[in-house]
């Protein structure tokens, strides 16, 4: 029962905080531009407004476009329920396997890109294809770092990984730290922030794959994308920064774990927001250079693992 409660709390936390997180990111951007900026609650207002709008469907679009926003948000919710965020163990162990999480996250990507092709618009489709290519470039690094951690911890279950990292028994330590850095970089790419926002690429593609969505569907999709950013950041926090998460599921321990998790997540998002506003966009042809760098780091962590330092 307590596991179920933890899972529900995690889901509610991430879904309810997602617009706040993106609102704060907007505020930080405004401040760094020396602008006043909108309220940090602006994204809630936007979503509420979109939810009450009439929806316009593009004529070519069919079931795929209709199904995509619920699939996107729903999948992210399920992933969020399985991660070991406020306790070291997975609230739903059946959802806590690394491979399961990564392949489950391929479902929204698949539908997202397919919906982009569905509307028959050229801008949407280009965005959708870029989203897929980004996945191709970053997935190997993600899996290699997680494999290094799995070998260091002796399990592919996120809860077991979190537990052995938190209790500092993951061996060899240097490999784990380097893997953590590589994973952080890969997560940053996966979050789709500058310079990796190629799918939306406001200047070139006018919000790319989202262009044909409107009204409640757009609201659900925007919420889903904010939740995805939080889920990816949480994945990093859960596995590489599990310190402070409850090792036994007592109410007090969970409360402390919850507070610390929010603090860690906020810190990670803050760093991400600062980086995002300090860099410029990259032409997507050159993305490979950056992802090769991330993959190089991942390979380095593997080398350290093999030689045992």
């Amino acid at each position: 029962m307590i596991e179920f409660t933890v899972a529900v709390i995690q889901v509610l936390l991430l879904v309810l905080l997602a617009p706040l997180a993106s609102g704060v990111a907007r505020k930080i951007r405004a401040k760094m531009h020396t602008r006043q900026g909108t309220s940090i609650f602006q994204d809630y207002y936007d979503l509420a407004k979109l939810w009450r709008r009439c929806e316009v469907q593009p004529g070519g679009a069919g079931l795929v476009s209709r199904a995509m926003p619920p699939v996107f948000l729903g999948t992210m919710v399920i992933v969020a329920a399985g991660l070991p965020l406020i306790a070291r163990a997975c609230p739903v162990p059946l959802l806590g396997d690394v491979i399961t999480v990564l392949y489950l996250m391929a479902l929204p990507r698949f539908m997202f890109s397919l919906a982009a092709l569905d509307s028959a618009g050229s801008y949407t489709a280009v965005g959708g294809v870029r989203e897929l290519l980004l996945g191709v470039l970053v997935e190997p690094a993600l899996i290699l770092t997680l494999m290094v951690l799995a070998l260091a911890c002796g399990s592919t279950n996120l809860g077991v990984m979190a537990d052995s990292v938190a209790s500092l028994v993951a061996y060899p330590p240097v490999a784990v730290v380097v893997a953590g850095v590589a994973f952080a970089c890969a997560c940053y790419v996966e979050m789709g922030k500058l310079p990796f926002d190629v799918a939306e690429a406001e200047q070139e593609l006018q919000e790319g794959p989202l262009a044909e969505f409107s009204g409640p569907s757009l609201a659900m999709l925007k919420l889903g994308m904010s939740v995805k950013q939080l889920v990816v950041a949480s994945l990093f926090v859960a596995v590489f920064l599990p310190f402070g998460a409850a090792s036994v599921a007592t109410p007090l321990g969970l409360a402390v774990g919850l507070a610390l998790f929010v603090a860690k997540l906020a810190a990670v998002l803050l760093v991400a927001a600062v980086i995002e506003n300090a860099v410029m966009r990259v032409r997507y042809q050159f993305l490979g250079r950056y992802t090769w760098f991330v993959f190089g780091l991942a390979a380095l962590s593997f080398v350290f693992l093999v030689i045992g330092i």
Partner: protein
Amino acid sequence: MLELMLLSLGLSATGAVLSLLLMRAPAAAKTAACTLGMGAAAASLASGVAAIGSPALLANLGGPVPFADLTVLFNPLSGLLVAVISVLALVAWLFGLSYFNEYYDKGIGTLGCFMNLFVASMMMVILCDNAFWFLVFFELMSLTSYMLVIVEGDEKSFKGGFLYLVMAHIGFLMIAVSFFLMASACGSLEFAAFRATAFDPALATAAFALAFFGFGAKAGIVPFHSWLPQAHPAAPSNVSALMSGGMIKIGVFGIMKVCFDLLALSGGQLGWGVLVVVIGAVSSVLGVVYALGEHDLKSLLAYHSVENIGIILLGVGTGIVGWACGNLWLAGVGLAAGLYHLVNHAMFKGLLFLGAGSVLHATGTRNMEALGGLARLMPVTAVCFLAGSLAISAIPPLNGFVSEWFTYQALIGAAMAGGIGLRVVFAFAVVALAITGALAVTCFVKAFGVTFLGKPRSDAAKAAHEVPASMRLGMVALTALCAALGLGAAWFAPVMSGIAASVLAAPAMPVAAGTALVSLDTISVTSPLLIAVLLAVVVGACALARNAANRAHGLKVDPEPWACGYAPDVHMETLASTVAAGVRGFMGPLYGIREGVNSAGAAVAGVFGRAFEAGACGQGAAPAPPSREQRVRVPLSESVMSVLRSVGAWFSRLEGGDFRTYIVYIVGALVFFLALIILVR
């Protein structure tokens, strides 16, 4: 078991003869071939399922040849293969009831005859337990399938078919040499004698390597893959399903049979497993990379068979490594993962080929660039194709995910258990599988999106119609099987583990508990069933909420997409080439390898072709099949040069200062020197 199989073979033979006799009455020939074929498939399915759950049964059927009795062996592994091919055959015949209407003027009588013989010869290859008869039926399988490839009778099918024939015989030769090596060492052509002999390790390795590459040529591993994308698409689509889903699995079956069964007493060697894993990893990546470059729907699917054979071999290779190291968990789970993916690939690849056949039936073209918007016109085909695409992309909770999950667990488990060398090999395999997974998603977004979504880009696509009931039924049946193998994984996985255990002659590894899949050595669990239930509930709730908001605030349809202020035009749509161009941009060097390998394959076929022409042998004597660039008759020396050139071009980029290659180079050098230090120490 045996009686059912004999019944099935009898029905196939009757079907073949009747179909040939009724040649003048196409409709009757088709009906006779299809119904008898379905009867045969149903009987062999029952026989195969019975064999999975029974102890091994060896039967001697005598036979006309004095030196080799026709012995057949039913064991769980052969039962599984028989069952898988029977399911595909059943569906292919069902599909054919309507699909073959197009072949009335292309010799439906011979088509029905050869397809019946083809299915029967596949059954016999699987069951045969004598080297001589094995080779006879293997050859019969190659010849009958060749006849099916050239049934269209156009230039393209002759070229593809000829390349196939040459490749099949190169494979046949290697397998034959492998068997004769073993036979000369133990003095008998009976597999039972092979099994009872402990061969000299060097001879065992030679026999294994020859058999691996020989069966690999049949299975379509890189570098013997070039015939697949040319031969499979040329056959009628339900035959492609049977070839791509069924026949190439016989290559994998042969590799397993030689390694675990015939060479059982000689003991597995670590090197064999590493060879299989490395070739599997390379095949999986290159298969999907090349698939992305294809615009022909069926060629794309054929390249994906190369990829999936690679994934199956990753599991099988891990099993061999575990077997050689005496790690029972690794051997059992690796092999079970390979077998599970073998079954899964047969189901979704069969489904996708039938889907492509439906598209071809409805529009008359396989060129994705000229399709588009079919989801509206052929909804059942579209939904089935989408399910197949999700399954082959390993997206939970469908069946592809289950077998890839086990494959990942086995690979990671192998890296955990192994020393430095094995760790590097299995890390390579894991990364290859990750790249393959991400590229497969891209490729099937392209295949499904460009074909079925958007707006029709040609008159043929505009005039498409849903296919007849028997074709729909065939696709729906395979879709249901894909879903069942995914959702019911907790019940199917122990069956695979049991078959793996019988192959290894070891206790079965626990792979499931309740509704969950379990991986013991990597301490992890997952449950496709739970994921499916959660997805249904959560996504359903989200959709209901969104639809309620739509009802409250209105929903309009805007006929045209936004095109930045211009009038939308059909030429603005994204095509297959758009998707491929992006991937080519990042993976250029990998395509360079293909040019080399393809032209080498073409050159080999060209040499045979000239020999054939000299012997003046009928229609098969087409000149060398061209590679992508229509290079006809590339001299061997030039093709070797082009491989060298593309490798050379890649290396020259190291000097050229490309920053990405530098990083790879540095990491590679680092790994090398660290390994050296450890070894010296």
